[in-house]
């Protein structure tokens, strides 16, 4: 079986890469949440946001990072994406000088829907996109 991952990122590359992925992931979650179709419980993402998030994970997998680097960038990108998404969602309130701690309370007590929308969108689709590439490299089509 061909070795899948090879490139080891430095600390700076891990931080920069994780931050960039988090910013993109948070922005995609915000666009998804604002423009999606609402069923009874959770917003359903449009195809554009789904495809872009899958491509995000796919493109990182194409970089063929070693496992430590891949996991490190993903673990850093997760909280960055959540903070980015919450920041964009609360942008009108931030512009009115609401305290960040108060906004965090509002977010938590708004219920699990925004958090669930993030959880079931960015982390899942990002990992799914990477999984598509791993299957391609090691699965029945390799």
């Amino acid at each position, binding site marked *: 079986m061909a070795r899948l991952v090879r490139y080891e990122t430095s600390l700076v590359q891990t931080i920069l890469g994780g931050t960039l992925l988090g910013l993109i992931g948070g922005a995609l979650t915000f666009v998804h949440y604002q423009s999606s179709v609402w069923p009874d419980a959770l917003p359903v993402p449009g195809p554009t946001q789904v495809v872009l998030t899958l*491509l995000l994970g796919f493109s990182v997998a194409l970089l063929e990072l070693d496992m430590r680097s891949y996991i490190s960038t993903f673990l850093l990108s997760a909280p960055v994406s959540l903070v980015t998404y919450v920041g964009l969602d609360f*942008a009108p309130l931030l512009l009115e000088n609401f305290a960040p701690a108060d906004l965090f309370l509002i977010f938590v007590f708004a219920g699990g829907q925004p958090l669930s929308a993030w959880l079931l969108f960015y982390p899942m689709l990002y990992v799914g996109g990477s999984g598509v590439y791993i299957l391609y490299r090691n699965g029945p089509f390799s």
Partner: protein
Amino acid sequence: MNRRHFGLVILTLVAVATTGMLYPVLGNHLAAGNTEEVGVSVVDTAISETEEGTILTATLRIQNPTTRPLVVPETVAYGELGIQAKGATLNRRRVTEIDRSRIPARGTGTARFRFVLKDEYADRIANLLDEARLSGQIPFQLDGTTIKTEIDVALSGGGD
């Protein structure tokens, strides 16, 4: 081009596409945050008799402080917007008809709202106008998103 370069190209394209999608969505989101400051005032009212019954037409001046145009919908459901006086709702249980209007960003426009009055108030409407208020929600459209704005204005020419 090797796989890593291809991956970087895709990553760049995703970043560019995301930024392109983010700009209008964030703009609408910030604009929607200002809709509670939409100013509504009554310009004039008119009473007319039709086959449907007695119609009260209220012309409203709407000030749009947001950075996007506001569209006034063609209809408002009963219960969302009504004429109130002496603790009673004067208009019939039906949809309110509106002349669809587009209020420019950071601009002012007018919209005419037509209410069919209940029979028991039709004859007395002239006396009730001084005390009557238009209250409820107007479901403005802001770039395809419905933003419900609370209003409560006196029909005799008061502002919100």
